[in-house]
């Protein structure tokens, strides 16, 4: 039997397996990705070099996969920290009174008001680019919308009848949080976390592409795309097209996984 729920579950599983495979394979291919061989320069895709080679004779398949792996690992770290920030600030805004709420809400509006990529470049540049620049830049520019969701969820929960009654029955605050609040917030956090990935990966690629992110020695997708720009006019299409395609597939898969998670968690939302 193949109902829609099972199909969604399978899709989620496929996305998870595919993305983990890229992450692990990329980490193992890292050495090969930087290996130069000037006898094998600018080869179009064939059986030994699936994605061809670049101007230094490096295997583009190894470079693409390890670049994506790096992106996914950066995405994992930034999405984790961003989710944590969102959870802490969202909960603080909802529970610590009007002053704190106004301050945090103002901070959310302010950060959201600045164009994403601009904020990212500013922060990354300020902390000295490179890995830390990307990490801090993406972390600090991606927590806002989830924080907003958590804030309103916690506010709604606090006013819900069953929590008010539990308070009057003398249930301890910690137990209320554990029993009534966390089970409700966990799926929100999970989904927010997974949906942060595609953003983090795309933004990592864009700021590296623009030269404000990872350094040129690293096999990052942004570096690959930036380098391939120079060779496009010479007809070396595979340098940009295949890594670009893989980037799009990766991002789409993360998006798909997030949407599948939403549907599984809240079947009614499938109608939206």
């Amino acid at each position: 039997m193949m109902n829609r729920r099972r199909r969604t579950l399978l899709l989620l599983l496929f996305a998870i397996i595919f993305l983990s495979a890229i992450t692990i394979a990329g980490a193992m291919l890292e050495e090969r990705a930087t290996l130069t061989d000037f006898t094998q320069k600018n080869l179009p895709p064939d059986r030994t070099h699936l994605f061809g080679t670049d101007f230094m004779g490096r295997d583009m398949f190894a470079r693409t996969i390890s670049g994506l792996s790096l992106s996914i690992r950066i995405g994992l770290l930034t999405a984790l920290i961003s989710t944590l920030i969102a959870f802490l600030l969202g909960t603080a805004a909802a529970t610590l009174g009007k002053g704190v709420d106004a301050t945090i809400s103002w901070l959310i509006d302010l950060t959201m008001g600045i164009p994403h990529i601009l904020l990212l470049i500013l922060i990354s540049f300020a902390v000295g680019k490179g890995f830390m620049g990307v990490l801090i830049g993406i972390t600090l520019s991606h927590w806002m919308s989830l924080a907003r969701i958590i804030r309103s969820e916690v506010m709604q929960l606090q006013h819900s009848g069953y929590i008010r009654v539990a308070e009057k029955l003398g249930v301890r605050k910690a137990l209320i949080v554990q029993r009534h609040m966390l089970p409700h917030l966990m799926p929100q956090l999970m989904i927010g976390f997974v949906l942060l990935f595609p953003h983090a990966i795309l933004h990592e690629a864009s700021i590296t592409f623009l030269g404000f992110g990872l350094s040129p020695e690293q096999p990052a997708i942004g570096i690959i795309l930036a380098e391939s720009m120079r060779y496009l006019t010479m007809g070396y299409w595979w340098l940009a097209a295949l890594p670009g395609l893989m980037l799009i597939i990766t991002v789409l898969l993360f998006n798909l996984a997030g949407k599948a998670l939403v549907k599984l968690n809240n079947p009614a939302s499938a109608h939206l």
Partner: protein
Amino acid sequence: MILEANDISFRYHIGSAQILSQFNIRLQRDERVGLVAPSGYGKTTLLKILAGYENADSGSVLLDGRPIQDYKGYCPVQMIFQHPETVLNPRLKLAVSLKEAGLLPRRILDGLGIEDDWLTRYPAELSGGELQRFCIARALGEQTVFLLADEISTMLDLITQAQIWDFLLKELEMRHIGLLAVSHTMELIQRLTTRTVTLDQR
């Protein structure tokens, strides 16, 4: 023990309707009082203020001379709401929700007709009337001294209504719990209570 409200005034927002103004009520723990008023006159609001769910804008609510908000832990004034589905966590089995009131004697579950099999279910798997019995049981924790009942039997059929009130009256009498009951059915109020208070300042 005495539950009293002195000169309480209340409105939900600045500029919205004044629901209560300078209202007074006094309840002894051996009394059963009926609260009567048309819809929208603030019966539910009054109960919420007396149980400490809302704060009055002015005036005081005292239990034994102490402000009701000062009672930490289990509140001796417990309210039973009109809509049980809003006060039960949909993600928790009913046994867990019920346990929040502390240990309840078998007598209460039997008296309210709560079947063992219901305890392992989620709120969505029971009817409104069945859920309401859990809410009534939960409000009868050991330290309850006053019970505020907000049209608690409207979703029950007449026979069940009679059974539940019959049990409740015996339980209240045995434990000397005071009752403030809201109902639109005058006959029910007259059967249940020793006196009636009308909310008619508007």
